[in-house]
């Protein structure tokens, strides 16, 4: 059965029918614009031929910081301290107790595009969601600028690293960027007649983002590889970035409880998680900061972010266009 309309990220069911319709129209526009520019990228709505899905995953902790080879504690501290450093389509915020021990880490991959849409489509729902997730009463004026038309994603209610977090706010962490990157990655590239396939090299050659991030090279190489194999590429419905679980091997809890039990999904369906919390239930009598990884207590959210995976889901279908010639690197 072919896709008839785009669903909201995470298959969230909180929007009215009208708002869902306008969300679909908004996302179609994003796909259509890219499909017009890039021959091997398509809008999956209405496509009725066989398509395959491809899960592309990467760790949530910033690859840029890892590649600098600074010490682990240095990079964890930097990542924890500034949401602008959290540029892998996942951001997090910590809650610490009075002794500075971590009580809870909240991870989000919710795209700001969705909240931007609500500003125009359903202001009441926008404020309700902001109220729920920030725990504060949020005035609408704090979320809009320029006479009310422009959504402010990184407001005081959503820019903290040790307080409320509502959705992604780093400038590259949005749905539009993910769709654009996927579309641009469909261009095959060559150097001296050699077709490129390696992730960082492709990113550098095609100017697909930052080669030191985890996400850009990963998405770029996977999409490019599909096109090289004769496919057209898109993103699966519901388009979005998803939290793909947490790896807890090596985490030691004081009472032997399996730390997987501390990962709680707060928003999104089971296969499309957009918000999750890592927190020890109060009755166990200890906190996240009492858990160790290889003997080292969890003092940073980034220690967990290294174990949280983020996912985007590409779609492919057999291409009926003539194979494109690879292009040289972007000057």
């Amino acid at each position, binding site marked *: 059965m072919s896709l008839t309309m785009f669903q909201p990220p995470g298959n969230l069911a909180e929007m009215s029918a009208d708002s869902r319709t306008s969300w679909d129209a908004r996302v179609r526009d994003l796909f259509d614009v890219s499909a017009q520019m890039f021959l091997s990228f398509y809008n999956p709505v209405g496509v009725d031929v066989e398509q395959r899905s491809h899960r592309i*995953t*990467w*760790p949530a902790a910033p*690859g840029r910081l*890892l*590649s*600098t*080879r*600074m*010490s*682990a*504690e240095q990079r964890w501290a930097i990542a924890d301290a500034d949401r602008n450093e959290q540029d892998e389509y996942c951001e997090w915020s910590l809650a610490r107790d009075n002794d500075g021990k971590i009580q809870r880490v909240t991870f989000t991959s919710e795209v700001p595009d969705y909240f931007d849409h609500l500003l125009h489509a359903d202001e009441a729902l926008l404020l309700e969601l902001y109220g729920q997730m920030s725990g504060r009463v949020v005035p609408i004026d704090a979320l809009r600028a320029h006479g009310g038309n422009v959504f402010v994603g990184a407001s005081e209610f959503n820019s903290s690293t040790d307080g409320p977090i509502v959705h992604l706010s780093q400038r590259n962490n949005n749905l539009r960027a993910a769709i654009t990157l996927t579309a641009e990655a469909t261009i095959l590239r060559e*150097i001296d007649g050699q077709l490129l*396939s*390696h*992730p*960082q*090299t492709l990113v*550098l*050659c095609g100017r697909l983002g930052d*080669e*030191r991030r*985890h996400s850009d*090279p*990963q998405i770029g*190489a*996977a999409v490019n*590889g599909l096109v090289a194999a004769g496919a057209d590429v898109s993103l699966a419905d519901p388009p979005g970035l998803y939290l793909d679980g947490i*790896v*807890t*091997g*090596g*985490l*030691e809890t004081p009472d032997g409880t*399996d*730390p997987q039990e501390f990962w709680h999904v707060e928003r999104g369906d089971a296969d499309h998680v957009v918000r999750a919390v890592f927190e020890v239930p109060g009755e166990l009598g200890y906190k996240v900061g009492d858990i160790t990884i*290889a*003997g080292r207590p969890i003092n940073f959210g980034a220690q967990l972010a*290294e*174990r949280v995976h983020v996912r985007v889901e590409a779609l492919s279908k057999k291409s009926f266009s003539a194979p494109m010639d690879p292009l040289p*690197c972007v000057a």
Partner: protein
Amino acid sequence: MADELLADETCRVFSKLSQPQEPGVQRFIVGEDRSPRLMTTAEIAQDLSDPFAALLLLNGVFPSTAQELLDALDAATGEGDRLREQRSFMLGEGSQLPVREVDTDSTNRGLRFLIARGGGNDGPDLIISASHPFEGLVELMAWDMVHQGFNFYRTLGDGGRWVWAGNSRHALQQPTRGKGPFESHPSGNLIMKELKFPWVHWHSFKVHISAAVFEEADVPREHQWFLDKSGAETCETDVVMPSIVRWTNVRFERVLSGAVTIDPVLLIEHVVTCPTVNLASSGTESAAAKLGSSIDLPPGFFVDADAMEAVGLPEPPAFAVPGEMYASSLETFGFHMTDGSFSQPGDTHFAFVVPERAFEDIEVLRQAIARGVISPRLAAALLMVDFPNPVFSRKRAKLLASVPSVPASDPDGLSEAIAASILAASEESPDGTPERDFAARWNLGDDGWRESFSLELNDYYTAVESRLGSQQGFNDFVRLAESRRHHVRDLPIFESRLLFPETNLDRQDLVMSPNGTVTEAAG
């Protein structure tokens, strides 16, 4: 035949064994046994308490292939049993070489899978290594719930012939130390050489191993192991590190419970020598250098960064060189990848692969300090001897000869006793010897060592940074890297020439100095 087997105490001895006549499990612990012999059911029950033995061997099930083993485990366990939880990983020294670029008859790319079954947060219960699901050698490590440690198994030919080659504990005791499988697993641990980011040679989120490494008709291409494989990042955090921590925990718990005495030599060996190494590399693709990307350099090349962190000393800053400088060195030294029949210019997929201290040594050091077995001061004073050479330091290794060989019953006073023994040796040593170096460092006292060592390290880091500012300086480090790779080529973990690039440099034994210069090793 038995004499020939006795003469070969390496892990290669297993390939010399003839296939046993009947399916079953043979016991052949090199160093203890003269030759393999079929284990009785009673012996299996007594000696082996891992899931492979308990669920299969004891029930007369002797699988012929890796997939048969996994199927047999599924048949022997119920719905929801953790032994049914499977993760597969893939690696190969030639895993970035698609079939169209190599003659697979003459070039062995070392493609193989690691399959982990079961286990909680302390690692899997079974770890299988095989290159094909339905044929060839199968190696298996299985956690023993009663005796603790891993049992090491492998197939001998086909048709369900297995050999039990020992338990992790055999790696640490005579007459089996360093023999058979413990030649390449010197501490009885699971080995993942390329343990850390970016896991060169492994499938990971950083670089995939694509289906192009297989011919269309190759069975593994469409097998679940390949299609559902996880990245090396998960193997590191969910399989290998927890497994190493698990066995190290057992070692220390035995010591601290009084079940076994502390062998100071065995302990300090992890600090001053490198029974094995891990391989680190730049996080940047070698090919990216030509497109202007700078090349970050692995900190463990310059100093024992993880060990310094474990004792609270300053870690190095981020060292990197411009892409052009790195590319120029590839040209100058004729870097190429070859296995003898295949050859292509350039470096490994990720740039600058070098040995660094193995995680298993770091974990022993970390636990020894955390559990109060040795003091940070002793560890730091040992590590600072010849600190610019974090691996293969003959100077630091020489200290082991002065460590008391008498077992200690408890850790109280152990650090002081070890230090006193080296200090005594230093009195009879001339200036410039490692014993004298250690003595000077130890004598800084409880209050003085940290500041003094930190200053020394920071001066060294400044010197390295300065040398990285010139092509000549970087080229010296490239020569040093090649010298260290030559050491690895002598180790049993070196199984393929494609592990490293080759160069036009003659073999030299080079060392780094505290001023950041590279010289020939003395003597």
